[in-house]
């Protein structure tokens, strides 16, 4: 049984704009999946549907085989959730927020709680409202993982954090993976975090799943070819080559992404244009993301 399963999820907003039009994918135990997509692609909507905070208009979401709105307590006890815009009660002290969570979760691990308090140097007596953005997110993370959840849902958890705090976040997630075998679904605009943490990526685009792939296969199955500018080297000419899925006109050269091995891509470019001085470069995930969805990442 999958840890979490989205089956044909549809969700539109009041304006009648479809955000999700039939999204399906699932995570098996211990998998770490990076959820990618442009702003507004529906990543947050999907996470909220998983948490039972909103309901899909069509389709079924299940966590551990249970519906988050049918068995909210059963489900939430086994899940940890952190989002960029999460709100903690401002008038409470850090200590009180932690106590509150400790009481809600039978599996709460006090040793882990203390460990994280120390690592994050949290001011236990401070009021939530006096915390920095980074500290508040660390409190949220502590509350999300100290019951050692089977599933972590992280919605832009590092958004707005400085590099040191981001790294803490990453390391805590990795600790959960190592110690608890936690399944993780996370969204992030930081592609380097995705490369570090994710074993698989799911890319949401125009309401559906554009890509669902092992991260290494994704990279190894694509190549980036830089073709020096020349009159015959046009966007259309490149796109007409077999396997070429995206072209960007950059100052140094035309950047073309191919869905094939570098050698094949270079051969095809040479066949089209003759000797051009084209060369291959490994594609970083970020570049591929921009090529595929054309977005601001």
């Amino acid at each position: 049984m999958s840890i979490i399963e989205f089956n044909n999820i549809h969700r539109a907003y009041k304006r009648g704009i479809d955000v999700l039009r039939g999204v399906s994918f699932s995570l098996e135990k211990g998998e770490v999946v990076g959820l990618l997509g442009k702003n507004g692609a529906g990543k947050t909507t999907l996470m909220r549907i998983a948490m039972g905070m909103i309901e899909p208009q069509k389709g079924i979401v299940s966590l551990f085989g249970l519906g988050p709105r049918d068995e909210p307590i059963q489900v939430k006890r086994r899940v940890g959730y952190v989002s960029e815009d999460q709100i903690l009660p401002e008038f409470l002290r850090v200590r009180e927020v932690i106590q509150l969570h400790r009481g809600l979760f039978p599996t709460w691990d006090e040793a882990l709680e203390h460990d994280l308090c120390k690592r994050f140097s949290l001011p236990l007596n401070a009021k939530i409202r006096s915390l920095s953005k980074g500290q508040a997110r660390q409190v949220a993370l502590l509350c999300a993982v100290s019951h050692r959840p089977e599933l972590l849902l992280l919605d832009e958890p590092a958004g707005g954090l400085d590099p040191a705090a981001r790294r803490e976040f990453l390391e805590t997630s990795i600790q959960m993976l190592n110690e608890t075998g936690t399944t993780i679904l996370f969204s992030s605009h930081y592609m380097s975090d995705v490369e570090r943490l994710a074993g698989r990526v799911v890319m949401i685009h125009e309401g559906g799943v554009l890509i669902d792939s092992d991260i290494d296969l994704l990279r190894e199955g694509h190549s980036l070819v830089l073709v020096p500018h020349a009159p015959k080297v046009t966007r259309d000419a490149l796109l007409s080559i077999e396997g070429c899925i995206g072209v960007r006109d950059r100052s140094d050269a035309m950047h073309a992404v191919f869905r094939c091995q570098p050698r094949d891509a270079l051969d095809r470019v040479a066949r089209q244009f003759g000797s051009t001085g084209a060369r291959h470069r490994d594609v970083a995930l970020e570049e591929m993301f921009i090529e595929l969805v054309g977005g601001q990442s």
Partner: protein
Amino acid sequence: MLIVVDPHSGVPVYRQIMDQVKFHVASGLLNAGDELPSTRALSSELGINPMTISKAYSYLEREGVVERRPGRPLVVKAFETNQIHDNRINQLRESLAATVTIAKQLGIRNDEAIAVFRELLENEANPQAPDNEGKEQS
């Protein structure tokens, strides 16, 4: 063991780890019987998904670079002396493959490319050689 991962490089992280372990073995920084850090330890140290480390390790095992013994850390496999030499040659071959591609793309003839390689090697061996072009390279 020094391993550095660059998540922006475009080379899959597991391959970066494999390449560096192989390089350390070929260069003699890692010797037969040396233990590799556990998956967990390396995962925490590098801030990398532990599955990625296991993947790198199992490919290294399949390629015969390391061996797994039940309940013990992975160790670098013992090599025959000539095998160490073979490994070094293989490392060189892999690095040169990219250069060959560039030479082909630039339309350079084989004998010219070989001459350049020979020239660079010889300049490296005698850095004082009175060859201005070579001096800049070394």
